C-alpha cells in the first residue's frame, strides 16, 4: 500500500489543507464585508513588517513551540493531550512561585529554577490524567479537558486568595524582581540591533529551539523514544516486546505536561513578569493545531509555530488597523485543525488512490 511518496505526506497534503483553510477564511472575511487582500497585507506588515512585529511573532511562536511539542510527544505515545492549556497554566504557577520565592541574584539562576518549577507543575498536572489512563483506562481526552477547567479554577483561587498582594485589586501576583527578567532580543548581542526595546521575544525562544532538538533526539534516537513510538503505533506489539504501557503513558505524558509547563518561562517570566489570569491565552489549544500541521515532528512543529505566531500577531494588528475582529485568528485556527486533522482523508484518500493507480499501472507496464 505504501506507494505514495513521502513528500506527498509531509509537504503536499499539509500544504493543500492549509490552503483550503486560508481560502475559506478569506471567504469568511468577504462574508463580513471586508477585503481579504487588504487583511493579508495588514497581517503581513503587522507581523513581519517591523522589528516590533517580528518581536511579537517570535514571542508567540515560542509559546506555540512548547505547546506544539507537548501535543506531539504525547501523540507519539498515541495519547491525545488536549490538556496543554491547563498544564501551561499550572506551569505559570510554578514559574511564578519560583520567581517570587527567593531574591534571585541573576536571571540565569532564576531561569534554571523557573524551568524546573514550570516543568514540574506542568508535568504534575498531566500526571493524574496519565495515571488514570494507564491504570484505570479513563479516556485521557476527557480527563485532560476536565483538568483544564480544574486548573483554571485552581489558578483563580491562588491568584484571588493567596498570591494577590495586599491592597491590589486585580487577581495577579506581585511583579517579579527585576533580576528575574529574561534578556529580550533587544538585549542580546548582534541580533539586538534588529529588535526594538519593547519586543517581548526573549531567550526562551532559544530554549524552545533546544527543546525541539531534544525532543527530536528523544523520539528518534533514544531507547525511550523507541518505546514511546512503538507503543504509539501498536499497543499489542509493544506489550509483546515487554514495553510497559504504564511506563510509556506516564513518561510521555509527564514530558508532554512538562513541555507545556515550560512555556511559562516565556509568557510569565519573559514577558508578563507577573502571573495574571489566563496568561496562557489559548496557546495550549493552538498547540494542537501546530502539532497537527507539523505532523508531530519537531521541525514541522517549529515551522507551524512560526506560522501561528505570525497569524496571532498579524491578527492582533488586524483588530487595530481594520474592523475585522481578532477572532478571525480563532476561525483560521479552527479551520487549520479541521482540515489538517479531521478532514485529512478528504484529500488524502483521492491523492493516495491516484498514486496507487499509478503504481498499478506501472506494474502492468
Amino acid at each position: 500500500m505504501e506507494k505514495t511518496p513521502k513528500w506527498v505526506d509531509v509537504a503536499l497534503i499539509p500544504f493543500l489543507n492549509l490552503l483550503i483553510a486560508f481560502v475559506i477564511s478569506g471567504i469568511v472575511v468577504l462574508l463580513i464585508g471586508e477585503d481579504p487582500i487588504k487583511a493579508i497585507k495588514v497581517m503581513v506588515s503587522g507581523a513581519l513588517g517591523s522589528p516590533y512585529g517580528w518581536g511579537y511573532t517570535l514571542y508567540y511562536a515560542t509559546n506555540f513551540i512548547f505547546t506544539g511539542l507537548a501535543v506531539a510527544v504525547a501523540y507519539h505515545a498515541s495519547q491525545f493531550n488536549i490538556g496543554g492549556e491547563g498544564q501551561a497554566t499550572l506551569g505559570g504557577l510554578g514559574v511564578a512561585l519560583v520567581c517570587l520565592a527567593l531574591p534571585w541574584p541573576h536571571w540565569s539562576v532564576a531561569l534554571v529554577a523557573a524551568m524546573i518549577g514550570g516543568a514540574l507543575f506542568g508535568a504534575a498536572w498531566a500526571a493524574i490524567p496519565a495515571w488514570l489512563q494507564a491504570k484505570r483506562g479513563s479516556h485521557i481526552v476527557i480527563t485532560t479537558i476536565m483538568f483544564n477547567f480544574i486548573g483554571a479554577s485552581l489558578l483563580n483561587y491562588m491568584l484571588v486568595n493567596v498570591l494577590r498582594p495586599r491592597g491590589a485589586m486585580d487577581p495577579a501576583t506581585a511583579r517579579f524582581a527585576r533580576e528575574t527578567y529574561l534578556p529580550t532580543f533587544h538585549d542580546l548581542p548582534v541580533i539586538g540591533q534588529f529588535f526594538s526595546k519593547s519586543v517581548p521575544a526573549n531567550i526562551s525562544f532559544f530554549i524552545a529551539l533546544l527543546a525541539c532538538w531534544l525532543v527530536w533526539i528523544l523520539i528518534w534516537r533514544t531507547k525511550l523514544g523507541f518505546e514511546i513510538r512503538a507503543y504509539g503505533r501498536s499497543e499489542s506489539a509493544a506489550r509483546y516486546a515487554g514495553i510497559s504501557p504504564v511506563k510509556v503513558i506516564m513518561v510521555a505524558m509527564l514530558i508532554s505536561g512538562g513541555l507545556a509547563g515550560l512555556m511559562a518561562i516565556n509568557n510569565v517570566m519573559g514577558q508578563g513578569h507577573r502571573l495574571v489570569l489566563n496568561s496562557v491565552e489559548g496557546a495550549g489549544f493552538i498547540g494542537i493545531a501546530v502539532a497537527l500541521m507539523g505532523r508531530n515532528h519537531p521541525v514541522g512543529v517549529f515551522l507551524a509555530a512560526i506560522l501561528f505566531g505570525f497569524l496571532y500577531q498579524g491578527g492582533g494588528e488586524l483588530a487595530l488597523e481594520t474592523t475585522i475582529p481578532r477572532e478571525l485568528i480563532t476561525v483560521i485556527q479552527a479551520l487549520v485543525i479541521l482540515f489538517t486533522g479531521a478532514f485529512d482523508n478528504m484529500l488524502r484518500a483521492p491523492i493516495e488512490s491516484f498514486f496507487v493507480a499509478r503504481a498499478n499501472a506501472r506494474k502492468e507496464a
Partner: protein
Amino acid sequence: MVDVQANEAGRQATAALATQAPAIELKGISKAFGTVQANKDISIRVMPGTIHGIIGENGAGKSTLMSILYGFYKADAGEIWIKGQRTQIPDSQAAISAGIGMVFQHFKLVQNFTVLENIILGAEDGALLRPSLAKARKELKRLAEEYELNVDPDELIEELSVGHQQRVEILKALYRQADILILDEPTGVLTPAEADHLFRILDNLRKEGKTIILITHKLREIMEITDTVSVMRRGEMTATVKTAETSPEQLAELMVGRKVLLNVTKTPAQPGKTVLEVENLRVVDEDRVERLKGINLTIRAGEILGIAGVAGNGQSELLEVLGGFAKGTGTIRINGEEIDLTGKHSDGQSRRRRGISHVPEDRHHLGLILDFAAWENMIFGYHKDAAYQKNAFIMDNAGIVKHTQEAMERFDVRPPIPTLPAKSFSGGNQQKIVLAREIERSPALLLVGQPTRGVDIGAIEFIHKRIVELRDEGAAILLVSVELDEIRSLSDRIAVMFDGQIMGERLPEETDEKELGLMMAGVVN
C-alpha cells in the same frame, strides 16, 4: 428497488424450475484492495440443496469473495446470478432480500444486546420494538425445534459461549428466511463437540433444501460434509470438483499449486539437558475464565515439542505466559532457574534476557509494528541491547540499519531494504523478518506460534529449515500450530492441548492423524 422485485420474480421462477438453475453463479469477479489483488476473475456455480466447500490458504481471497456475494464489499468487476437471475448486490440489504445469509468468521453481534435484539436488528416489523420482539420469540422457538438451534432468547450475547454465539448468527440468517447460507471458517473457534453439532445442523439445513457455502481450512471437514468443493489460490479459483471424486492429497496440491511434500527432512533429535520446565501453570484471563488449567511440560535442548490442538484451547495463552505478556501462576524454570511469573520481571524484555525468544502467532498485531521500518522491527524487543547503543543516551541507528541489511540478506527477505516499512513486505517476508530477529540471537528457548500462517510454500520450507537448524544448534523449541501436518513433520514430540490442559504426549512416528484428532477433541488421552 427494481432489483429486489426482479429478484422476487426470479425466486418464484426458480421454484418452478427447481434443480435446473444454480442457486448461485458468480462470473468473473475481481476485487483489489489497493495494490493487493484479492480476487482475480473468479467464476463459480453452486447448485441448490448442496453444501459447497471452499478451501484455500490464508489470504487466498475466500472471505473477500463471500463478502462480495453478501454485499459487504463491492466487486471491481464481475456478475452475480442468483437462482438464474442476474442480481445487483450493492449492499447487504440486497443480499438479504436475495435470500442470502452469512455467518462471518468474526461474528457481527452486539455484545450487550440480548439474543432476541440481535435477531431482529435490521429485520424489525414496524417502528416499534414490542411486536417485533414477540414475533421473533415465537419464530425463534420454531427454528430451535426444527434445527436443534437452542439458545435462550433473553441472554446477553456477551454471556454466551462462542458456539452459542455462532448459533445466534445462523438463527439471524434463518430468521431473515435465507435459503443460501454462507459460513466462513465456522469451526476454527469451536470445540470438537460444538463442531459436530454444527455439522448436524448443516446437514438438517441441506435436507430442508437450503444451499450452503462452507469455507474451511480443514480438508477433513470438506471430505466429511460437502458435496462439491472449490479451491482458491492467490486470488484465483483453481478448480471445482465433486467431493466424492477427489482426495485430500489432490486438494492440497490444488491449494498450493504443486505436490505437497510436507515432510521436513531432518535428522533425529539429540536432546541434551532440560531447558524448560513448566509445572502446574495456570492462567486466568480478564473475564476471569481459567484458560490454562495446570500445564506440566519439559523441553530439552535440541528438541522440538509441538503443541497440537484446536484453536482456542489455551495454546495462545501458553505462548503468552511463557513469552511474558500474560500473568500466570505456577512454576517455570529455564535451565534450572525459576522465572518471575507475575512480578516486575514478568515482561517480554526480561524473558528475552533469559534467553527466551518468541515468534508470536499473530505477526500483524504482536510480532511487527507495521508502520515501523524493517530495521526498527529487527530490534524491536531487543532495543535495549548494548550492541544497539552508541552511548548511554543515543541509539546506534546507522549500525542497526547495517545489521538489519545483513540479516535480511541471510534470511532472504525480499526486497532487502531496511528502511522500508514492514507493511510493504508480503506476509512471508514479514514472517522472515520476525524469525530473523528471534532466531539470530541463538536463544536457549524459542517459542513459535503458527510460523507459516499465510506464508507461501517457498517461504514455508525456508522457515521450517531454519527452525530445524536452530534445534540442531541446541535450542529448545516450543512449536504451536493449528496445522497438524506441520506439527507432525517438525516436532520431535507432540503434546495435544484441549481445554487448557495437556491431553497427552506422543512421538510423531508412533501416532497418526486419527489418534491426535481424537485427543484434540478431548476424547482419549
